[in-house]
């Protein structure tokens, strides 16, 4: 027993003894949580202000990203909708439609490669629809081979895929019916100067460029005036158990003059082409970032002002034994609470907005990764935003409580 402990033992029994000092970490977290939530919900105006910042950031950033993803989806949906995993096309192809065609010989080669269950040709090119009232509208013509119809129309709202088996018959996009002069099933139009019949309508197949119009292979070849033996794509379906990368490698070896891509590879190529050719990524990215910055500033300032308005309380907490670390726990708990509440509200709103806005021309896509990512990003943002408030607290002298 040391001298000091002996001294304490010698004190009269009724005298209060020195205490052990700091409580265990768990209790300090619990005390700070009690204060953190007490303060947050006591100051309703600040609570709403801060939440507004988080909700705004969540809403704007997600809306921008979801719109961007929706646009990327519209531009790759043709590729993604096909069950063919292998796409053979001209070396220069980076988007739909390709600028160049390849020889039909690739089709024969592809059919000879082990690992492909089938291979089918597709032709794609620009079409111009002459409107009855004068004027013209562009479409993207896609011709597919019967009876397989690989690469053919899907998402039909009127008629079905088989309508293109009728002579000189195309399907058009439902959302473009007005634009194309009030199309109906059975309407007759001139496309590239030749008469065609409207056989059915697809829904929502709208990339950046002209909408898709599907027809039988030879019909479309004729409309496009394609040279004999030229195709835009050869689509290949893997045999059960075959590996897409291995089959693609084998095809590349056998067909050195063409480009062989997997379905995912082609999708990625289209997206990176769009990102490079247009400022769309930057535009949406900037808006999303703007949302985050505004949210950060709002959360920063309102958390700081909550501290500045309550300096005496924070000073008192320091005087009665809370350390800077304890008070950073307090701010951390508040920041995380703001982030969780705000992002849940924000995501609820953006989901509703997405439902409201989505249509044939635009769909907002909110994948689960984005939703989870938002919560994480908002948490990081709010915790970072609390640092101004923390700096103010750290500077606070506990002696101020006596002033």
């Amino acid at each position, binding site marked *: 027993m040391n001298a*000091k402990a002996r*001294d*304490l033992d*010698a*004190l*009269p029994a*009724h*005298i*209060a*003894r*020195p*205490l*052990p*000092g*700091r*409580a*265990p970490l768990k*209790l*300090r977290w*619990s*005390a700070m949580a*009690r*204060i953190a939530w*007490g*303060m947050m*919900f*006591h*100051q309703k105006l600040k609570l709403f202000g801060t939440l507004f910042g988080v909700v705004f950031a969540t809403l704007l950033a997600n809306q921008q990203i979801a719109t961007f993803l929706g646009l990327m989806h519209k531009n790759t949906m043709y590729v993604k909708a096909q069950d063919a995993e292998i796409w053979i096309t001209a070396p220069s192809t980076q988007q739909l439609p390709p600028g160049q065609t390849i020889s039909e010989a690739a089709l024969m080669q592809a059919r000879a490669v082990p690992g492909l269950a089938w291979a089918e040709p597709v032709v794609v090119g620009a079409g111009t629809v002459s409107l009855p009232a004068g004027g013209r509208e562009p479409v993207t013509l896609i011709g597919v081979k019967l009876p397989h119809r690989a690469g053919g129309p899907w998402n039909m709202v009127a008629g079905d895929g088989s309508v293109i088996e009728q002579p000189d018959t195309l399907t058009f996009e439902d959302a473009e019916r007005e634009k194309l002069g009030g199309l109906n099933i059975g309407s007759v139009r001139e496309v590239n100067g030749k008469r065609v019949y409207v056989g059915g309508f697809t829904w929502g197949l709208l990339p950046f460029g002209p909408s898709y119009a599907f027809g039988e292979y030879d019909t479309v070849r004729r409309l496009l005036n394609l040279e004999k033996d030229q195709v835009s794509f050869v689509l290949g379906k893997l045999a059960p158990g075959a590996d897409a990368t291995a089959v693609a490698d084998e095809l590349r070896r056998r067909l050195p003059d063409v480009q062989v891509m997997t379905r995912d590879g082609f999708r990625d190529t289209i997206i990176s082409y769009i990102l490079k050719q247009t400022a769309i990524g930057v535009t949406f990215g900037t808006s999303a970032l703007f949302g985050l910055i505004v949210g950060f500033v709002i959360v920063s300032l309102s958390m700081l002002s909550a501290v500045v308005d*309550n300096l*005496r*309380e924070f000073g*008192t*907490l*320091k*005087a*009665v*034994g*809370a*350390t800077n670390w*304890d008070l950073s726990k307090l701010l951390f708990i508040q920041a995380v609470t703001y982030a969780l509440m705000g992002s849940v509200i924000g995501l609820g709103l953006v989901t509703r907005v997405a439902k409201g806005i989505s249509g044939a021309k635009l769909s907002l896509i909110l994948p689960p990764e984005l939703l989870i990512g938002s919560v994480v990003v908002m948490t990081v943002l709010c915790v970072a935003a609390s640092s101004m408030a923390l700096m103010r607290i750290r500077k606070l*002298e*506990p*002696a101020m*409580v*006596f*002033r």
Partner: protein
Amino acid sequence: MKYAIDARSVTKVYGEGDVAQRVLEGCDVQVPHGEFMMLVGPSGSGKTTLLSILGCVLRATSGEVRLFGEAITGVPENHLSRLRLSYIGFIFQGHNLLASLSAEDNVAVQLQLRGYPTKEARREARALLDRVHLAGKYHRRPAELSGGERQRVAIARAVAGAPPIILADEPTASLDAANGALVTELLRELARERGHTVVCVTHDNRIFSLADRIVRIEDGKILADHRERAA
């Protein structure tokens, strides 16, 4: 370790150079265990400054202060909060309660910081509020209590967890005479029951009679050997 508080030659200078102001000059203060001491003196004489140094919220420029034999002068800044938890309960001129928390939570938080698990903290907080005659007002926020009631919650918080030393800076300043006397009597009773050593700064001559001893400070100097016993 004859004294609960043993301060020797404590000097405090605010500022530096031309603006330097000597606020305390060689102060010696010894407070025996369990004493209820009052510190009195004119405005600006350095009472709050001295109390802040004894309370480990302000560091003396020179001199030595021991609490229960432990030197608190010269310890690093980040150890001071540990010392406050070990030794000190504060009562301020204003109540300084957290406006957003109930009376019970204001006391319970102090208990948690002193190591009481959540449930015990709640039980002990209520017991202390009962003791300061606030039974049934556990869930009131400070704004829903009278000035005297608030100061009683502040007393409950100061003694929560039984720190050996209670430092009070004009605890009756914001109260009327009757309430001031009541609150001081309550503090006095609690201190006697629980063995707290109390230093209470006051201007309020109506409560002088409650002190074991009154120490006078003027111009930063403790008036020599001023050991008046209350009548």
